[in-house]
């Protein structure tokens, strides 16, 4: 057998092994209930509770932002984020959090928001209808 074929096979084997390892590295999208059970770091997908207050007071603590979110099972949970408030969170349609449960609060390390993109925002912003004379 040629050396190159042996190496080729070895590398294909390595690639397969690698893909398997990648999938052990991968995670799942969970809910707050699962997060409570697992206690490990994971993703939670959900939507912002716009009724409740988004609390960020940089004068007190520039690195504390709290808000409430519903997960996909409509369970509500308080989210604590050790950082500044992401700018467009109010407009988000969906939030993907990375973090883990600490007691009854979810401590997020990363907040990824899906916002209505300006590309497909099917709305026209209308300036207060004024006459052209102004």
């Amino acid at each position: 057998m040629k050396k190159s074929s042996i190496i080729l096979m070895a590398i294909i084997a390595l690639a397969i092994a690698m893909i398997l390892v990648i999938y052990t590295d991968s995670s799942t999208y969970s809910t707050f209930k699962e997060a409570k059970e697992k206690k490990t770091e994971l993703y939670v997908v959900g939507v912002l509770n716009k009724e409740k207050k988004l609390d960020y007071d940089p004068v007190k603590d520039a690195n504390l932002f709290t808000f409430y979110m519903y997960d996909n099972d409509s369970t509500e949970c308080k989210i604590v984020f050790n950082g500044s408030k992401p700018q467009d969170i109010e407009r988000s349609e969906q939030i993907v959090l990375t973090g883990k449960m600490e007691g009854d609060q979810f401590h997020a390390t990363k907040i990824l928001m899906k916002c209505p993109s300006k590309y497909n925002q099917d709305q026209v912003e209308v300036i207060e209808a004024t006459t052209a004379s102004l």
Partner: protein
Amino acid sequence: MDVNYVGESLLPGQIGQFFVVLSFGAAILSLVSYFFATNNPEEKSWKTLGRIGFFTNAFSILVIGATLFYIIYNHLFEYHYAFAHSDKNLPTHYIISSFWEGQEGSFWLWMFWQVILGAVLVFRSKSWEAPVMTFVMLCQTFLASMLIGVEIFGSRLGSSPFILLRDALQAPIFSDPNYLSMIRPRGLNPLLQNYWMVIHPPTLFLGFASMIVPFAYAAAGLWTRRYKEWLTPGLPYALFAVMVLGTGIIMGSFWAYEALNFGGFWAWDPVENVSIIPWFTLIAAVHVILAYKHSGHGYFSATLLSLISFVLVIYASYLTRSGILGETSVHSFTSLGMSGQLIWFNLTFLVIMIGLLIWRRKELPSTKKEEDIYSREFWLFIGALVLTVACVQMISTTSIPVFNAIFGTDVAPPIDPISHYNKWQGAFAVVILLLSAVAQFLKYKRTDSKKFWAATLASLIVSIIIAAIAIYVMKVYTNVMYILITFSAVFSIIANISILADAFKGKWRLTGSAVSHIGFGLLVLGALVAAATNEVISLNETGYIGVKNFGKEGDKFTDPGENLFLTEGEPVQMGNYKITYIGDSVAPPNVFYHIKYENIDEESGKVLEEFVLSPFAQNNPAMGGLIGTPATKHYFTHDVYTLITAASADSQAPISNLNEEEKTGFEDYDEPATYQVNIGDTLRYRNGIYIIEGVNKSAKLENIPLAEKDVIVGLKIKVISSDNKEYNAEPIFLLKDGHAYDFNKDVSEQGLKFRFSNILPAKDKLEIMVYQKPLPEKKWIVFKAIKFPYINFFWVGTIVMTVGFCMAIYRRVKDGKREANIES
């Protein structure tokens, strides 16, 4: 339904749409003609027809570009593209950015570059013209179809940049004939209002577009059975594509570093990964092509890698444009409803690749001879394989959303993608760097092992010493992986420098490769050190209460936050620097926040250096509030990067709209307080005290002549603020012709205004009125500062690598001409 709309200019759109359709038709004509020209080389008319189609297509694309530019430049917001991507306030140079902000514009850019490359091929590729142009025009046909924007059999084909706003969107306002004067265009995303955004997309798309040429040559070689011949003309194009794409990717990285707010230059975002994957495979292709040319080994790999690189470019295009990455990417790409079309585009080229390879599998040149282990081709081959495996890793992780869509699973990508990718790609980088050092000492076919070891060991020893010093100086000794990468990068640089030294002695042939490998080594070194040792220097340890989460050590949830709160004028010590927020200035639409950095020597208290960074932010409610753009202080050995993450609202508030005439001079003040005082009284105000010092009977007023009976009295007031600053004010009271007047005086520094409003002889009192401005809420900002050490290696490495590619292209083009001369 027929409304006569006012102010619409419909002609440009009609011209544009006509040429969109023409460009598509011409591309098909050219494709078909070149196809038959390849199969019937005797019939010259096919080739002529193919050229006619190509030039018609080229002309149409130029007209489309000019028309679209005209629409954006003249603010014709009746067109959806201009409405969605620009507004009237946009500076002219950013009109170029808005041109390719949308998918339609970026498809146009891709087609435009393909036209330029096609023109070069038509004039230069001689006998290769027909088969190569067949594949180029096939790609051009697919791209042109993306712009058509018409409904065929119920599904929309493409998305036209010339669609009218009132056709693109449904809104009640479009029943008003005057709608044009009432709409507010969305404008260009502030993140793209950066000069790098003017130049990064064209470079990147030139890189993507030029990947078609190696594909076309490889496919044409298989199709026309000119197996070995395509490598010589194809190689310079492959090198060109690698060079341009590499530059484009790093430009994007520089843009991210200079203008985006994620605090770094590389984030392993899916969008970044999919652009780097075809770059890797084409680099692997270039190396295997060289190995094949010199040794006859690896024809299949060379062809496969050249072909698959372009298939991966289309795959990248599919991933970024179809919206499938939704939950995993910070880049908000959404679907324009063209994912079906993109899948067809992708599958067509994949099928062509597989089909051609299977069709010609028995005829592919191969050699029975075994590679020698002391030969360069053997290790080039290994290097290419390692690069391929590195790509497999990136594709597998990046494509998780695609697998989810295909198999209906719900797998999430790794929680911490950066460490996930670093772990894998770091290991691959070590192997690649070591190979790029060792293989340079080997010769094709057979190397004298003694000479090889002598040269290698010499470089190895020098590298170990330099790497040890570098590891110590750059402080990367904390992690075994860092040490390994640093060492292998240094080894690659040193080995290639010694090759370069030989080159100056006369062996010019390897210069280009030596220079580009040195560049690559520097690039990896810079990326590693900057990524591994960057530190957030704005740690908020003061605002952080030690008991939060009971201070579990090493728990990132309890780490002090990375954002620092700064009040205007109140300095804070941050690492080596004393930093002060000294104010802001507005240059619509941006607000610049000026932060003064002072490096003060602890012992002498001398200011060693001082500079002001002015990161800015744009408050753009439509785009999601405050969008910050960092400011960076560049040093030779490190950068200090500063970004605003929040700011007090008032600095963003619109300026008061009161007209000058309506101002009374009092509207900024609170309700006044009236006091009856005597000389010598001391009174308080919000920020200190003031003393009634005495009366000035000889006060004077300019421009007012005084009669004898008139009384004019000044009241001397001394203001002492809480920080012991003294101010004097003298409001004046005037009795003229029996009427009382008073002339107020400001102490604007303290926001005070005094009126001497009356003299009460009966009570022996003086009456004053004191106006105070409401205490301004002190302006504040929240910001983040990161120190990136040795990041200049990253940028310098990129430049060196590009120079090396240029040298290699020059050499290969010359070689190609010489070979052509020998043949003829």
